[in-house]
C-alpha cells in the first residue's frame, strides 16, 4: 500500500464533495429524516406507555445514530466505486499504479469520514431535540463505533465485489446490502424479539452484538465485554472473507474483462 496513492484517491473524493455540495443531502438529509421520525415516535411512545418503558424507547434514537455509522461506512466503500463508473473514470483508475490495497484503504478513509460527519451531526441534534446523549456511553462508544466501521467496510467490500461481478445492473446493491441484514441485526429491538428459528442469524452478524451492547450499556452502565468480544471476532472473520471475495472478484474481472463492460454500457 502506498500512502501517496491513498491520499490522492481520498483527495479525489473530497474534491467531489466540496465541488458538489448537493451531495451533502445524502449525508445529512436522509439521516436527519430518520432521526426526526424515530425521535418523535420515541416521544409519542414515551407519553403513552408505562413507567419503565420510556427508558427502553430512548434506545431507538441511539440505534438510529449507530446504524447510520455502519451504513455510511458501507456506502463510503460501495459508492466510491460507483462514482468512478458514473464518471466513466474507471479505466483511468484501474490502468494507473493503484493496487487493490490502495483502493480499499482509500474507500475505508472515505467511509470513516462519511460516518464521522453524519454521526456527529445526529448526535448533537439528538441532544438538542430529544435530550438523548449518545456520549453517555463514554469511552464504551469508541469500540462500538470502531466495530460498526469494520462491519460497514466489510459490507462495502462485499457490495462492490457483487457489483463488479454482476455488472452495472447490480448497482442497487450498494444501497440494498445493509438492509438485507437489518431485520436480523437487532437494531431497533433485541435479538430475543426475533423468532427463535432465526436468532442464530442475528448472533452471526457483528452489529447485532453492538446494538445489544449499546442497549445494555445505556441501561446498566456496565461495559458489555461479551458483546464487544463477539462483535470484534466476527468482524475480523467478515473482513477477511470480504477481502478474499474482493480480491477473487478483481482477479475474475481481469479474466473476464468485467471492468471494461462498465465502460461500454
Amino acid at each position, binding site marked *: 500500500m502506498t500512502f*501517496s*496513492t491513498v*491520499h*490522492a*484517491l481520498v*483527495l*479525489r473524493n473530497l*474534491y*467531489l464533495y466540496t*465541488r*458538489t455540495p448537493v451531495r451533502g443531502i445524502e449525508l445529512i438529509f436522509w439521516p436527519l429524516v430518520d432521526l426526526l421520525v424515530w425521535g418523535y415516535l420515541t416521544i409519542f411512545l414515551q407519553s403513552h406507555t408505562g413507567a419503565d418503558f420510556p427508558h427502553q424507547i430512548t434506545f431507538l434514537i441511539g440505534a438510529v445514530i449507530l446504524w447510520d455509522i455502519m451504513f455510511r461506512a458501507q456506502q463510503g466503500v460501495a459508492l466510491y466505486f460507483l*462514482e*468512478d463508473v458514473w*464518471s*466513466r*473514470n*474507471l*479505466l*483511468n483508475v*484501474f*490502468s*494507473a*499504479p*493503484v*493496487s487493490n490495497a490502495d483502493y480499499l484503504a482509500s474507500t475505508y478513509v472515505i467511509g470513516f469520514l462519511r460516518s464521522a460527519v453524519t454521526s456527529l451531526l445526529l448526535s448533537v441534534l439528538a441532544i438538542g431535540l430529544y435530550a438523548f446523549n449518545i456520549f453517555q456511553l463514554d469511552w464504551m462508544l469508541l469500540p462500538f463505533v470502531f466495530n460498526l466501521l469494520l462491519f460497514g467496510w466489510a459490507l462495502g467490500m462485499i457490495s462492490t465485489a457483487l457489483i463488479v461481478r454482476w455488472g452495472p445492473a447490480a448497482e442497487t446493491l450498494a444501497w440494498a446490502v445493509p438492509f438485507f441484514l437489518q431485520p436480523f441485526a437487532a437494531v431497533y429491538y433485541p435479538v430475543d424479539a426475533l423468532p427463535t428459528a432465526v436468532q442464530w442469524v442475528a448472533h452471526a452478524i457483528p452489529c447485532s452484538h453492538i446494538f445489544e451492547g449499546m442497549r445494555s450499556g445505556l441501561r446498566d452502565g456496565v461495559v458489555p465485554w461479551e458483546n464487544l468480544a463477539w462483535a470484534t471476532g466476527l468482524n475480523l472473520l467478515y473482513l477477511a472473507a470480504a477481502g478474499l471475495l474482493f480480491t477473487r472478484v478483481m*482477479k475474475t474481472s*481481469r*479474466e*473476464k*474483462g468485467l*471492468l*471494461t463492460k462498465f*465502460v*461500454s454500457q
Partner: protein
Amino acid sequence: MPTPVLEVTDLVKEFGSVRSVDGLSLIIEKGDILGLLGANGAGKTTAINMILGIISPTSGTIQVFGRDLAHERIAILRRMNFSSTYTHLPGNLRVWQNLNVFGRIYRVPHLKRRIDEVLELLGIAQLKNRVTGDLSAGESTKLNLCKALLNKPELLLLDEPTASLDPDAADTVRRLTLRIREEDGTSILYTSHNMRDVEEVCDRVVFMHEGKALRTGTTREILDHFNEQSLESLFIRVARGGVIESSAPSSES
C-alpha cells in the same frame, strides 16, 4: 541489443468460445510509434487492455521495460500512461483537480509546474479552472492527453486519441504525438480508425483482423504486400471480407 520497451509474445484472449486476440506478437523499441489498425472487433482495445493489466491474457506474455506485467504490474504502470476517447475524467471536478489527483497517483515531481506544462503543451492552459464536465468533446480529449503525459511516460498507449476531434484539433494531436516522441523518446502504441493518423504518425503498423495480426510493417510494406494504394482501401477490403490470409511473413515474425 537494448531491451524492447514492450514485447508481446503469442498473446491470446478468449472470452468463453470467442477468441478476441489470437496469437498477437509485437515489439516496440524505445522511441517507436506502433499503430494498431483494424475494424471494430479486431481485438485492438482488448490488446491494449491486456497491456494495461485491466484484462489478463488467456496465454502469452507481456514484457514491459523487460519486466513481466503479470508479476510487476504496479511498478510498470508507474512508467506508462494511457488515454482513450472512451474514458473520461470525473466531470464534477475542475481541470486542475483531476490532474492533481492523477499526478499524485503517478508520483509526479513538481506537480504544480508539470500541470501547467502539460496544459500549455496541449494549448488548454486557459481551461485550468474550468469544470471538467463543461468541456467540449475536443477539450475533454486534450485533457485526457494531459493526464496521459503528466508522468512523462516511457510507454504511452493512445486508444483512438483523435476520434472526437475536428480536423484542426486532430492535427494538433498528431503533431504533439510526434513531438513528445522526438523530445522525450517516448514509445507509443497508437490505435485509430483514422488512416491519416496512422500514415502520418506511426513508424510501423500492425494490421489486425479477427484478433490476429495479419501483417506488421511500415505502411508502405503493408500496402505493397496487399497490393493496395492506401490503408483506407485496404481497411475497407479487409473489413468487407476481402484479403484475410497472412500469406507472407511479416517484418517482425
